[in-house]
């Protein structure tokens, strides 16, 4: 038939065949649901359809996130170790008071709950450097991947690959490398240097905590920035070239300003992610040495969960504090993206 030989007709690729094979049960499923939804649409009218579409997601979300959040709120004003809220004695703001009981807020050692404040301090340091390096390296990598280089797809894949690994695996891999007898120390020794006990020195431990989390997530942010770079119209660069603008100047004057919206997204996302850091660092350094890499989520986890006396009250109070911080950050993000939408 004419249709088959038409060069512009749909090609029958393997991918296409797989897709159609996969779509058979899916189509059947959606068709099946068509009947009740049509009925509901007739019954309730179009105006209520959005609520209907939102319902399943909100139901799950409410059940498994919102209800627990409120339970947390309840825990935070009660004491003891009982799991059931009804059986826990009400203590009012005592848990919060306990968290904030300090002689001198600039020195965690003077606080009643010194670890909470150290965790906040550590999280601050971590977030500052981690987000900074994350943005810097994502940007450099994106700039490089945006160049005309051979095997760009391969390199893009290489930088993205760690994003797929679970936090536990990421930490295990690096722990395995950084141990006293790990391959990195073997390398140092073979170069005639002394071993470094990376997890004994607080600075090194913090360094590796930052390094490993940047390593693991950089690929994701790189892709966002790369998308932004590729969206910059090439004629702008051509115009700059015609003007004889220096490459460095092109970067500062054209690339960076036009990339700014994506940069903001990266910064905000990285920031929010960074505040919640837990698994990777916990497996990697265990929060040590001492409390040098103990972060706020780890504090909550150990207080409420991993202690013999499971202090849900105190942990929940700390969660609420963290929740407020995250909410503020989210509002910042919202403001940022809102402005971006308008601009």
């Amino acid at each position, binding site marked *: 038939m004419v249709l088959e030989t038409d060069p512009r007709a749909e090609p029958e690729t393997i991918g296409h065949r797989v897709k159609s094979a996969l779509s058979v049960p899916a189509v059947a499923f959606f068709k099946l649901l068509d009947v009740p939804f049509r009925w509901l649409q007739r019954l309730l009218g179009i105006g209520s359809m959005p609520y209907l579409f939102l319902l399943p997601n909100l139901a799950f979300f409410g059940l498994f996130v919102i209800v627990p959040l409120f339970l947390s709120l309840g825990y935070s004003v009660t004491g*003891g170790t*009982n799991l059931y809220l009804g059986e826990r*004695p009400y203590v009012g703001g005592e848990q919060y008071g306990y968290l904030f009981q300090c002689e001198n807020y600039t020195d965690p*050692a003077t606080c009643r709950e010194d670890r909470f404040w150290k965790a906040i301090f550590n999280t601050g340091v971590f977030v500052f450097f981690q987000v900074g390096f994350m943005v810097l390296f994502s940007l450099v990598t994106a700039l490089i991947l945006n160049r005309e280089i051979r095997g760009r797809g391969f390199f893009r894949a290489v930088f993205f690959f760690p994003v797929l690994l679970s936090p536990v695996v990421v930490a295990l891999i690096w722990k395995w490398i950084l141990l006293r007898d790990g391959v990195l120390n073997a390398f140092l020794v073979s170069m005639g240097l002394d071993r470094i006990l990376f997890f004994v020195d607080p600075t090194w431990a913090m360094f590796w905590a930052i390094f490993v989390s940047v390593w693991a997530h950089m690929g994701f942010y790189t892709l966002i920035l790369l998308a932004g770079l590729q969206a910059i119209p090439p004629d702008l660069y051509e115009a700059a070239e015609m003007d004889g603008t220096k490459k460095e100047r092109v970067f500062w004057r054209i690339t960076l300003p036009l990339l700014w919206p994506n940069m903001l997204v990266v910064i905000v996302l990285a920031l929010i992610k960074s505040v919640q850091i837990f698994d990777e660092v916990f497996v990697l350094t265990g929060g040590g040495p001492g409390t*040098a890499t*103990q972060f706020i989520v780890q504090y909550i986890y*150990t207080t409420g969960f991993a202690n013999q006396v*499971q202090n849900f009250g105190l942990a929940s109070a700390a969660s609420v504090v963290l929740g407020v911080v995250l909410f503020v950050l989210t509002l910042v993000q919202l403001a940022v993206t809102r402005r971006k939408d308008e601009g």
Partner: protein
Amino acid sequence: MAYFLRKSVAAGVAAFGLMASAALAETELRIAWYNDGIEGEVMRDILDKFEAQNSDIKVTLDVLPYKAILESLPVQLAAGEGPDLARVTDLGGLSGHYLDLTPHVSDPAYWRENFGPFLNWMQPVGEPEQISGFMTQLTVTGPYVNKTLFEQAGVNMPGENATWDDWAAAVNDVAKKLDIPIPMAWDRSGHRVAGPAIAMGANMFDANGEPALVDDGLKAMATTLYNWHQDGTMAKDLWGSVSGSQYLGANEDFANARVVMYMSGSWQIPQFAEKIGDAFDWWAVPAPCGPAACTGMPGGAALVALKTTEHPAEVGKLMDYLSSEEVLNEFYGRTLFIPGHLGLAESGVDFKTDDPRAKHALETFAGAVPGISPVAFDLQGYVYNRVMFNALISRLGEAIVGEMTLDQAFERMTQDVEKEIAEKRRDG
């Protein structure tokens, strides 16, 4: 792709179906278990034999990460969810959830006779007569040394009744001569420190039986440990890394002949036998002495029956079987665990090993049991002992890395213990 999808969906349906059908046929008992070595395999063999004799009971061993036993199980039990039996290490902390087996076992007297002192560890407050379970493993803390290194260095090992200071001097000597990086290593664990602290005169409790962690004895031991970390007797790798109460062992460094003396416990025997073999002579030595005693800490993991079970009679039957002298002899013998059964301890377990080092170590640790200080037994039996261990190790760790002074650490230890126990007591 489509085929694969269909198959996995079919498999998924089967998976959901199976959970439903398993409950129908027979009484199923579930044991929440964790493994340090091969004990899971041994237990499975024993359970197979039990099932052969009791065709109406099926026993499933759910091997979990230890983390789950430590962290998830308490929450599950608190929520009223849980297995029929569990292998636990927080003997006192979970004691409120244990089932009293007295009406369900055939001969409670046998239990009292053979497991007497350990039953106390598992008794809930105010239930002095309860039978909750038995020790799958009795552990005794104590040091190992790399005897081969001593021989190579030509240094004599300190003999019986040597103090910790004697040992410190000797291992430093060996390390210096042979250029061994770590003269001495201790597990990063409050439980490990408790024994030597008691040896130094720590009492752990005040006159009213209330916990009183920090006293002169404990301060003496803690100070010694602190100094050892400063002068290089101990490496900061273990105590200086990680935070809080997290456990870290030096077994790999020891197995790699990079540690002269390693303070750990009897549970290392099976894996040393496997990993080190005859590469060098790893030698268990009696607990070094302090002014008050020469003692380690007893401890271990117990198999306990839980209140969440719906089949107490079958649980009793299973426990009867498992606790019999014959079965325990096989279990301890194959796992190379120190028996938690007084009869077997007396008659001697038939350990299934040809390794003279392992045999010697087993004898050493088993022989140390009678010499354990009563304070150590009391501490092991105390419900909130882990609160004390955790406070001890986390604060001492922070002092060693220089985040606080020793005195501040002592103060924080006391505070931590008070705070947690106060929180617990709010439950009423």
